[in-house]
């Protein structure tokens, strides 16, 4: 809409009458202003504190404080702190907790009993265990780290791999190297002396092992095999170690060395296994199984 025509040109009666009244009112000149009031304007425009309000402010402040104190509960609120994990270490365990909260387990067994809140990071020489709200056991030996998860889930991390261990599972890291079939399938002739023994074969073999010659060697070897089959790894290793000590160049020393190597590997005693493998390579350089022994030794040394 453009500028309107002057109102005085209105054609209707109402408009003309309104325009006339408005023109009469508009023609009234303004009353002169007392210019001396300018100073009042300047004074009033300056910000000034009205100290009369100070008592009212103080009274309302005091009333507010009194109200807050009156409404305040009797006992101070108890800060709810997150429940910290409970760590229980075995007697021989070597462990520390860093300022960052990371737990470092060098050796022994550590149990994370409860972690209802927060995250537990457990570092071992072999891996890092990361858990949240989990209960688990961690054991560090020379051969590796064993994790048994009771509740929740634990994530095991190494430089290049990540494994998740769920409740009820156990993981050993680093994993046991695979033993070449020619080494695990080693057999030796059993001694026939005890075939007709009246008591147990083990007692008979122990008795024969005290003797001398080939019969004693065969008895010691078979004694180790039987103990190993029954899960008595320590007794098996003891029998074969005795055999090697007494008959280092005996007829069965290659089989005894291989049996030792396999059992030590299965028992995750990798350092001793490497030593046994090196002994085999030196003593039995022409043995056809030396290649398999070398391969196993290399995989053990790589851990």
């Amino acid at each position: 809409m453009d500028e309107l025509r002057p109102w005085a040109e209105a054609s209707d009666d109402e408009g003309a009458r309104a325009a006339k009244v408005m023109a009469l009112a508009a023609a009234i000149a303004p009353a002169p202003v007392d210019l001396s009031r300018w100073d009042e304007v300047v004074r009033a425009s300056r910000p000034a504190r009205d100290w009369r309000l100070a008592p009212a402010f103080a009274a309302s402040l005091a009333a507010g404080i009194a109200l807050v104190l009156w409404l305040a509960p009797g006992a101070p609120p108890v800060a709810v702190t997150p429940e910290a994990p409970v760590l229980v270490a075995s007697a021989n365990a070597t462990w520390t907790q860093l300022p960052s909260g990371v737990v470092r387990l060098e050796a022994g067994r550590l149990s994370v009993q409860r972690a209802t809140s927060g995250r537990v990071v457990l570092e071992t020489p072999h891996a890092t265990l990361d858990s949240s709200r989990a209960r688990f056991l961690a054991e560090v030996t020379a051969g590796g780290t064993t994790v048994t998860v009771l509740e929740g889930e634990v994530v095991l991390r190494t430089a290049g791999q990540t494994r998740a261990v769920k409740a009820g599972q156990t993981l050993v890291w680093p994993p046991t190297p695979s033993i070449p079939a020619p080494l695990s399938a080693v057999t030796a002739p059993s001694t026939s002396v005890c075939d007709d023994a009246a008591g147990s074969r083990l007692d008979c073999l122990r008795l024969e092992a005290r003797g001398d010659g080939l019969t004693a060697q065969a008895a010691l070897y078979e004694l180790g095999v039987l103990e190993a089959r029954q899960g008595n790894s320590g007794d098996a290793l003891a029998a074969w170690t005795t055999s090697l000590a007494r008959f280092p160049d005996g007829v069965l020393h290659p089989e005894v060395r291989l049996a030792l190597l396999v059992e030590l590997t299965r028992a995750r005693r990798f350092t001793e296994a490497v030593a046994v493998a090196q002994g085999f390579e030196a003593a039995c350089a022409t043995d056809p199984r030396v290649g398999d022994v070398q391969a196993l030794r290399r995989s053990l040394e790589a851990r």
Partner: protein
Amino acid sequence: MTVQPLAMAAASELSPTEAVRRLYVAHAAELRLGAARLAGKDLDPDDLLQEVFMVALRKSHDVLNADSPRAWLYGVAVKVAASRRRTAKVRRFFGFDEVAEVAAPESPTRTLDQRDASKQVERVLAKLSEKKREVLVLYELQGLPGEEIAAALQVPLKTVWTRLFHARKDFAAELARLDVIEQRTSGLPQERRHG
């Protein structure tokens, strides 16, 4: 009277307070009357004028750099008047209204017809909406051009014309209605009043 305060201030390096004082000297009278017309008869025009120039002093940079300082002052006057009207309405509602003796913003040299017309305008303006009253007062009574009204009210120019169009219609209708009521109550013929 047209004043260019910024140009004056630049030329003679006046202080902002002095430049605003010159605006006061130049426009105080018409602003006082305009503010009184905008706010209504029950509010003290001197108070309104003082508040307008207090704002001008606090925002002297704005008023001195405005394209039209007069329009800027009228813009403040419109806001002050609206605010005072609302406050007065609330005070009246709670029974706090105080009837004060206010100084007349109009010249005492007005004629009888002018006085009657002024009273009628005042009564009709009180019936109009705030937006229509503002544009009618500024254009018809205070004589501001449309551009300055647009600047004062911070609305587009076309909005000014639209509001003025409707304000005139409402004003004329309300004036006719009041004439009929007055005629019935006084018993005088309408022709004589038109005299």
